[in-house]
């Protein structure tokens, strides 16, 4: 696993411009878009609070949502897994004493830890500079929850990639999944703003641990219980995803004809 994590870091370092675009440019642009939206909302309504929280809470939420969602979303590795199965590159993993799950999990975590450390300074600096709400002592637990959530993300990615054994082209499933998660995670807006019963459902789902729970906790909007509930909810989601991913992988392997070699 550590060897695979190292592989991911080596590969990232090989392409410096791409790495900067991924770790700095992309979250900065997303953050600016969300900041503008919230600033425009408060400016046009003339309100100083929304749902009991001030404008600053929402601006801080926007900054951290952009940063945390970059960690908790899987575009690149899911696409790589799909491509490997579609074009037969998976052969080079299947013939070696390492599982596909483990091989990509190592790389995925290596990449996420490395890029998180590289880009963490930016949102902290913005919050300190603009005096936005931030409880810095909560950062380790926040990141702990997000990285635990990555296990679920990865397992879902393996399940989706396994569909590549059955269908020739499935890239758009990743697009559809990530757009759905954009709303379900709370990246778009804090989930407690949704009307009931959607509010309770959205918060209960494990996906709220991708953005809403960690960012709410870090910015002081939510308390410790949200994190413990988050771990529990992810564990249940992980159980379901593991069953689905294992079934799809095993069935897919039986069909696989070793494409491309």
């Amino acid at each position, binding site marked *: 696993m550590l060897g695979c994590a190292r592989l991911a870091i080596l590969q990232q370092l090989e*392409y410096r411009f791409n790495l900067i675009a991924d770790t700095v440019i992309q979250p900065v642009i997303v953050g600016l878009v969300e900041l503008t939206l919230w600033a425009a909302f408060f400016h046009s309504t003339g309100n100083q609070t929304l749902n009991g929280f001030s404008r600053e809470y929402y601006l801080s939420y926007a900054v951290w949502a952009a940063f945390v969602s970059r960690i908790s979303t899987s575009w690149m590795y899911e696409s790589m897994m799909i491509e490997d199965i579609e074009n*037969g590159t998976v052969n080079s993993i299947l013939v070696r004493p390492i599982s596909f799950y483990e091989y990509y999990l190592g790389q995925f975590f290596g990449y996420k830890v490395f890029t998180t450390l590289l880009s963490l300074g930016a949102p902290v600096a913005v919050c300190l500079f603009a005096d936005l709400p931030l409880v810095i002592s909560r950062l380790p637990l926040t990141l702990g929850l997000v990285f635990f959530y990555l296990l679920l993300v990865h397992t879902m990615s393996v399940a989706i990639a396994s569909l590549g054994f059955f269908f020739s082209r499935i890239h758009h499933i990743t697009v559809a999944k990530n757009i759905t998660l954009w709303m379900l995670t709370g990246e778009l807006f804090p989930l407690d703003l949704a009307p009931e019963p959607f509010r309770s459902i959205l918060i209960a789902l494990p996906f709220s641990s991708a953005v809403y729970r960690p960012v709410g906790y870090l910015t002081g909007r939510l308390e410790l219980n949200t994190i413990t509930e988050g771990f529990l909810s992810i564990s249940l989601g992980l159980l379901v995803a593991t069953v689905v991913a294992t079934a799809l992988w095993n069935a897919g392997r039986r069909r696989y004809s070793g494409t491309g*070699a």
Partner: protein
Amino acid sequence: MHPDVTREVTIETTGLSRSYETYKKPEGLLKSIEGFWKRETIQKVAVHPTTLTVYRGQIVGLVGSNGAGKTTLLKLLSGLIYPSAGTTKVLGYDPHERRPEFLRRVSILLGQKAQLWWDLAPADSYELLAKIYEIDSAVARSRVRELADLLACTEQLHVQLRRLSLGERMKMEIIGALLHRPEVLFLDEPTIGLDIIAQTKIREFLGEYVKVERPTVILTSHYMDDISLLADRLMLISHGKIVYDGTVEAFTAKSELRQTLSLKLVHPPMQDVTLRHDFKISAGTRSVRFEMPAQWIADVLGELMALSPVYDIKIEEVEFEDVIRSFMEQDARLRAAGHSPTA
């Protein structure tokens, strides 16, 4: 059988077969739209029930035309794909179960597919492979040095794989495949697309390697030199069936032994002549060269000598490569005539 080959069974299959489903891609826009809800599927048999035994230390050359089932058989034996029916044991394991203890003892090199990491220098890839195969890093480094010296590619170990030439890349792939000293080695077209110098180098290296390390090898190649120089057992596969299994020498002997008769006529004929078995000589021709089954030689030579005194007579055996080529051409003709492996 090679003197170093023991009677210990390394690979054993019983009724091993593989078929897969594909669909007919219709032509044109309307048919493509129709294909959105209605697709005609076809069952293709890539490997018909195959029973074979390979002993420890044997080097088996697997030969067949494109689509004959060579690579599918290799993928079945290495555990890359599941069989549709039958059983396989390689070193006592079911390959498709992919047990780590099995995978640590075998290796497959796919000549048409890079298995090292494209963005990394081979040295970094080997370091990762050492971790995957649980090899001590100092031992792995020394093994890499040893193999790189033999392949004369030490200079390229620290160059990103994507920047290497095809021949250099193949050498790197070979090092990666041999790093963990596999007991069973599946080589699928290891010299494909390489220039003659690179081909020779890799062939020489593999020849030396198998002599020293004595792995069990199954080798597919389109270059008959690879087979005739490396293999001590030949398997011919056609339409997913093993149609010949024996030594290279026995195959050449068993095949309709063809010879080439060449000679010069002292008095070239004044007009076109047709000999027995429909061999033709044009008027004024002095040098004659015919390829024919060995048993015809005496008849044809007798006729030619009756026509004119002859000199510079040569009778040559046809090369192994030519015999295989003739087999593969015949196989391709059968395929074109509709004897497809479709079940």
